[in-house]
């Protein structure tokens, strides 16, 4: 039953990039995926498989399509009216763009944390309870439990347990971001998408969020966009390097950072551009 988690741990015991065979199920399969905003193509022929219960990092220079890609994974990109796409993305074996596929279901299974903390102008409690409530959970006792568990999961409980009814806008930026993570955990997703979750945070808050990501990955598959290559190297298992809307290289993190195959990857990670 716990095989995914166990596999995760064995994998971690042998993190060294040897010829070891990494066994991990694929949760997302992206196949020849193209995306346009109006007439401007933002993603070119993206093909990659995102592993289950691991941390996948997306790196690349500004404007290369990282956000566009991660928002395609839960179809949030469709909120932009001019978007056109082709190719396929399948989640848990099902094409998420096939007709009849319920986008609400997808977004229940796949949570998202945004670049800038975006708590609702409601109380801390109501922020976390939002997801469960819209999915029909009404019982106060259950909600209380979910709120506590999620806030603990996001390492925020101790800081806010005495002021759950206060407005979330009174929290610091780092606390707000962890609140958003808690809000995302509250619907118990299988995958968490994070778009530069630490770019608005100071180093201490960043360290907390990174720690959190490490502790979350035994239960969740995580895809994280980051500008920060050290961060990608620290926390991820696999890394995809995007450039101008293309995936240049998608490799195990250690391999990609120690021994990149593509010249452009090397240039980027050694800081020669980007």
């Amino acid at each position: 039953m716990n095989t995914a988690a166990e596999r995760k741990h064995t994998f971690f015991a042998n993190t060294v990039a040897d010829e070891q065979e990494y066994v991990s199920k694929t949760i997302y399969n992206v196949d020849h995926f193209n995306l346009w905003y109006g007439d401007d193509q933002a993603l070119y022929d993206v093909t990659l498989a995102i592993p289950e219960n691991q941390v996948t990092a997306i790196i690349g220079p500004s404007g290369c399509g990282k956000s566009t890609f991660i928002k395609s994974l839960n179809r949030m990109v469709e909120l932009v009216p001019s978007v056109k796409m082709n190719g396929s993305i399948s989640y848990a074996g099902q094409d998420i763009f096939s007709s009849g596929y319920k986008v609400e279901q997808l977004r229940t299974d796949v949570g998202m944390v945004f670049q800038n903390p975006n708590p609702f102008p409601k109380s801390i409690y109501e922020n976390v309870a939002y997801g469960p409530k819209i999915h029909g959970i009404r019982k106060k006792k259950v909600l209380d439990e979910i709120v506590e568990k999620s806030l603990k999961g996001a390492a925020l409980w101790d800081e806010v347990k005495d002021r759950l009814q206060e407005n979330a806008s009174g929290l610091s930026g780092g606390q707000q971001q962890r609140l958003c993570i808690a809000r995302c955990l509250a619907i118990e997703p299988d995958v968490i998408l994070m778009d530069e979750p630490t770019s608005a945070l100071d180093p201490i808050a960043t360290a907390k969020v990174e720690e959190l990501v490490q502790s979350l990955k035994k239960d969740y598959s995580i895809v994280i966009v980051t500008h920060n290559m050290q961060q990608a190297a620290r926390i991820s298992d696999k890394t995809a390097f995007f450039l101008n809307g293309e995936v240049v290289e998608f490799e195990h993190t250690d391999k990609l950072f120690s021994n990149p195959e593509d010249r452009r990857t090397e240039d980027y990670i050694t800081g020669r551009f980007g």
Partner: protein
Amino acid sequence: MNLVDKQTVQSSMTKRLVKNRLANSLFFLAAAFGIVVLAILLYRIYSEGMGYLDWNFLTSFASRFPEEAGIKAAIVGSLWLMAVTAPVSLLLGVGTAIYLEEYAKENKVTRFIRMNISNLAGVPSVVFGLLGLTVFVRLMEMGRSIMAGGLTMSLLILPIIVVSSQEAIRAIPKEQYEASFAMGATRWQTVLRVVLPAAIPGILTGGILALSRAIGETAPLLMIGALSFIAYLPENVWSGFTVLPIQIFNWTGRPQEEFHLVASSGIIVLLIVLLLMNSIAVLIRNKFSK
């Protein structure tokens, strides 16, 4: 060599300062003009109207004798009218705004509707009176009732409510929508739990200002034939009625000098009602903006 000649700077300095002071006084005069005229008007109404303004005035019906004339029927009539106009215009107006902002696909029809709603806000109120007369009074056979008047007024202020509600909805940051949708919420859940709570202060403020416009409107109600001399209170929405501005209008039209003073008393009552409504709008805005 200096490109900026100190001499030129010095000599133009005085000129610039004088111009600035001139502009200052001109704008002050412009602002003062309106305020002075308003003050004179208010003073005249106050000094003329206070004489007749007493408890009797508020609790008596219209009369042929100025000393006995009261404004009871008009106050109650205005309240009845609001009881029809407020719910109808708010429901329709907010509904339209939500549809246009949240559900409508961006196409020619939507753009056409959007454009015309702003145009409707500029249509003279008599035209709405004519519309009410044709559709509600005659076609739907409502007669010269509160219902017909209330619906006509609803149409009149609908564009204002739609536009102000649209603005309130548009002011909500897109991040709030993203947060809700990313959690698997439907459009309707997002509207109900994120959009409306955030937009309600703006919607209510706009709504109350629109309603206070309706309370002061005369022309459309004259068109559909509101009464100006009644000595009974409306019993239900199908009764005939009069409202404050019509009663005032009627008094000012009488030959006897005394009735003009009574009209001033009526205006004071109307102004107090408007002031109350505007204060409520301000209160709501302050309460929610905290």
